[in-house]
C-alpha cells in the first residue's frame, strides 16, 4: 500500500496504490461524496486490498477538493471528478503494468465512474445514486451534511441524465436491495453489452454506524466485487 500525490501542480490529487507486480489488470476506485466518503473510507481500503489479493492493481484516490487532495469542497464538480478519474487511470497505467483497466464507483462516485467510463474497459458500480437521489442532492442547498455543494455541482446534479452511449462493454452493478436499482439496471442494460447485476443484501457502507462517524464494512459485497472476473 503506497500513499502518494499525483497530478499537475495546480490539481494535486492524493492516492493510495495497492500494487500487484506482474499483473495486467487494474481498477480505479472513485469514492462517494462528502460525509459518505468519510464513512466508507474503511470499506474502500479493504475493498482495494481485497482486489489486490485477487490480482488487480488498485488505485484509491480523492477527487480534487475532497479528502487529502488539494482544493476545497466548493471546487468539487462532476466534470472535475470525472477528469480526475481519467488522470488516476493514466497514473495507474504508468505506475504498474496494468493495461486492462476498470473503474469502480460508489454512490455519487458511481456517476463519476460512468462519466469517465470511456477511459476504461469495464465499469463496476455499487449502489450508484439513482435519479431521485441525484436530484435531491442537487436541490440540497448550499450545505449538505457538513459539506458545501458548489453551485456548478448542484446544476450538474439537477441536470444529470444516465449515459446511454460510450460505455465499456463489460460491467458489474451491485445493489444492496433490488428495488432501488431497477430503473438504472434497465438504462445501463441497454448501454453496457455484458452487464452483470447482483443483489447482495448488506448494510450500506456510507451510513453512520453507532455514532462513530464511520460506516459498517459489508464483507459480503466486498467479496462479490473482489471475486468478479471482469
Amino acid at each position, binding site marked *: *500500500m503506497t*500513499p*502518494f*500525490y499525483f497530478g499537475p501542480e495546480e490539481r*494535486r490529487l*492524493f492516492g*493510495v496504490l495497492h500494487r500487484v507486480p506482474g499483473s495486467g489488470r487494474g481498477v480505479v476506485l472513485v469514492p462517494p461524496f462528502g*460525509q459518505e466518503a*468519510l464513512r466508507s*473510507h*474503511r470499506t474502500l*481500503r479493504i475493498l482495494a486490498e481485497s482486489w489486490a489479493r485477487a490480482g488487480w492493481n488498485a488505485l484509491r484516490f480523492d477527487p480534487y477538493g*475532497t*479528502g*487529502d487532495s*488539494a482544493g*476545497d*469542497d466548493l471546487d468539487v464538480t462532476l466534470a472535475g471528478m470525472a477528469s480526475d478519474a481519467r488522470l488516476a487511470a493514466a497514473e495507474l497505467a504508468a505506475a504498474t503494468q496494468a493495461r486492462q483497466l476498470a473503474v469502480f464507483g460508489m454512490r455519487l462516485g458511481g456517476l463519476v465512474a460512468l462519466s469517465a467510463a470511456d477511459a476504461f474497459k469495464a465499469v463496476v458500480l455499487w449502489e450508484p445514486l439513482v435519479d431521485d437521489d441525484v436530484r435531491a442532492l442537487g436541490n440540497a442547498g448550499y*450545505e449538505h*451534511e*457538513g*459539506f*458545501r455543494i458548489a453551485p456548478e455541482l448542484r446544476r450538474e446534479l439537477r441536470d444529470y441524465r444516465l449515459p446511454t452511449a460510450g460505455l465499456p462493454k463489460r460491467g458489474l452493478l451491485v445493489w444492496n436491495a433490488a428495488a432501488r436499482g431497477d430503473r438504472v439496471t434497465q438504462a445501463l442494460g441497454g448501454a453496457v453489452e455484458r452487464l452483470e447485476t447482483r443483489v447482495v443484501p448488506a448494510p450500506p457502507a456510507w451510513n453512520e454506524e453507532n455514532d*462513530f*462517524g*464511520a460506516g459498517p464494512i459489508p464483507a459480503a459485497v466486498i467479496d462479490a466485487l473482489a471475486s468478479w472476473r471482469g
Partner: protein
Amino acid sequence: MERVVRFGPGESLTGVLTEPAEPRALPAVLLLDAGILHRVGPNRMNVELARRFAATGHRALRFDFAGIGDSPARTDGLALGEGVQRDIAAALDLVGGQAVVMGLCSGADNALRAAYRDPRVVGAALLDPTVFRTPGWYARRAMQKVTSDPFGALKQLAGRVRKEVAPPEAAPQENRPEMFYTGFQTREEVETHLSAVLARGVSLLYVFSGGWADIFNYPGQLQDNHPSLDLSPVRLHHHPEADHTFSRRAHREVLFAELGSWLAACSATAAGALPRA
C-alpha cells in the same frame, strides 16, 4: 505544500505534512484522529485546519493511528491507549522540536495524555473531551426540561419519586464518563493529568459543543469538576449551538478562528517560556 509522510516503527504510520511557504520558528501542530475516522477529520476539518495553520507559518501533521485509515494495525501487541501514545510520540519525533496537539472527542483525551507524557508538547486544544456531570449540570438540565416541556418534567419527577419509594435494582452510575469509553474513566485520572500539565505551563484550550450537552452544559462546569485546581490560565469556549463535529460551516468558522487565535497566543507563550529543542 503537502506531502505524504511514512513514519514510526517500520514506517507503519501514514500522514500528510502541510508545510508553510515561509517557515517560521513556531511549534508544529499535530491533528489527531477523532474516534475511528481517518486523518482528514470530521467534515474534513483537519485538512482545512492544517492548511490554515501552515498559512500562518506552522507545520501541521495529520496522521492515522495504527489500525485507523491508511495506517496498518499494530503488531507489537500494545493496548489501544498505550499504542496511541507511542504513535503520537513517533509523530513528535517526525516534526521535531515543540508541538501543539489538537483532537476532538477521543482525540481530545489523547491530546491531554500526550501533553502529560511528553515535554515537547507546549499546547493542547481539546474539543469535547471527557468531562463529568456536576450538580450544576443537573440543575440546568432540570431547568431546561421544565421550561421546554413542563408536563413531561412533572411526569419524570413523579417517576423519580416512585423510584425513591421503591429501592432501585442497581445503584446509579452518575459519575461515569458518558458517550465513549476509550478515554479517561475517572475525574481523578483527568485531574492528575490536568494538574501536571498546568504545572508545566502547557497552554490549554477547551472547546465544548452542544453535541456534548448530555455531559456538559455550562462554561463553569470544568472548574466545578476540579475545584482544587486553578484553571484561570485555561481558555474555554462553549458552543451550545454547534453539534459534536461542528458540521455547520458557520460553526466551524467560529471554531477555526478560536483555534487560530489560541495557537498564536500559545506560540508566543512557548517562545518566551520554553527552550526550543
